[in-house]
């Protein structure tokens, strides 16, 4: 893993699904089945498969393969910041 985590932090991990509602409000559609590529190890995972750490002030979604951060989400009173540096892409289907 890129960042050492204590047991409590590791146990607080949930699936990307946990952020599905909030991410849907940002992207305008459910992204749990949306594939994204980890910029660190190039593994492609669906957003719902990412490991979500949701107990801190921001939410962090990590790659299930290498543990690096793929997406970071911070909500303020009037905005949602989505840091996508850790993803080399997110692939949305045309409709």
């Amino acid at each position: 893993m890129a960042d050492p985590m204590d047991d409590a932090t590791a146990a607080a991990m949930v699936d990307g699904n946990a952020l599905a509602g909030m991410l849907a409000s940002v992207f305008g559609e459910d992204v749990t089945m949306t594939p994204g590529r980890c910029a660190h190890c190039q593994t492609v995972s669906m957003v719902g498969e990412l490991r979500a750490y949701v107990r801190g002030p921001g939410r962090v979604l990590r790659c299930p393969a290498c543990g690096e951060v793929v997406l970071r989400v911070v909500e303020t009173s009037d905005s949602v910041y989505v840091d996508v540096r850790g993803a080399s892409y997110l692939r949305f289907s045309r409709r």
Partner: protein
Amino acid sequence: MVSAIAWRLGTVTDITDETTTVRSFRLDVPGWPGHRAGQHLDLRLTAEDGYSVERSYSIASAADGSSVDITVERIPDGEVSAFLHDTVVVGDRLELRGPIGGYFVWEPANGGPLLLVGGGSGVVPLMAMLRDRMRQASTVATRLLSSSRHLEDIIYREELDRLANAGDGLEVIHTLTRSQPVGWTGYARRIDDRMLAEVADPLGSSLRAYICGPTALVETAANALSRLGLPPDRIRTERFGPTGT
């Protein structure tokens, strides 16, 4: 857009105690677009001063018009679960959005054989799958391995017994990790590799697995199934965190 994303108001039409700490709420949600088993919804509570808090809950019921059931465990210090357990009564209105999530979803058309593994309230989305399986008269070979602490903590125990006795290819296997009643013949330990191997074996090597529960249990079960040779794309997981959210 239509959608799953809009906040709606649902009215509580029924409240059922499942165990001493787990309660089900039936909501009537006008405009509910229907859902698939395994999806969840977000509940939002807003205080008079504008403070609001959201939680995600698995849907427990099969699709049924505008009616949606959630089953909620009362979490110590849980802002939302405590409110739902202690304050909400039939007739109250709750703000919600959904259905959400396409990842942890199973429908009879997806086929099987199906291995469902649930820890504590992790059985809730799996119950939606079993209820949908029954509603659609599916006979997909299915085994549910449910882990609970004590006999009285088993959520949906009577309904699971009924479903398992229907003779349509469902088997329900319980493990009780903390205490067992006299004469208990089921498993009496935490889920481990050997237990999963025994439970999965009759389903053959082409099974699909859905695992839901506390993170540690999900990790254990998913890793065990990987070691048994199940490919990652046939293992779907939903982690609750330490004890649930």
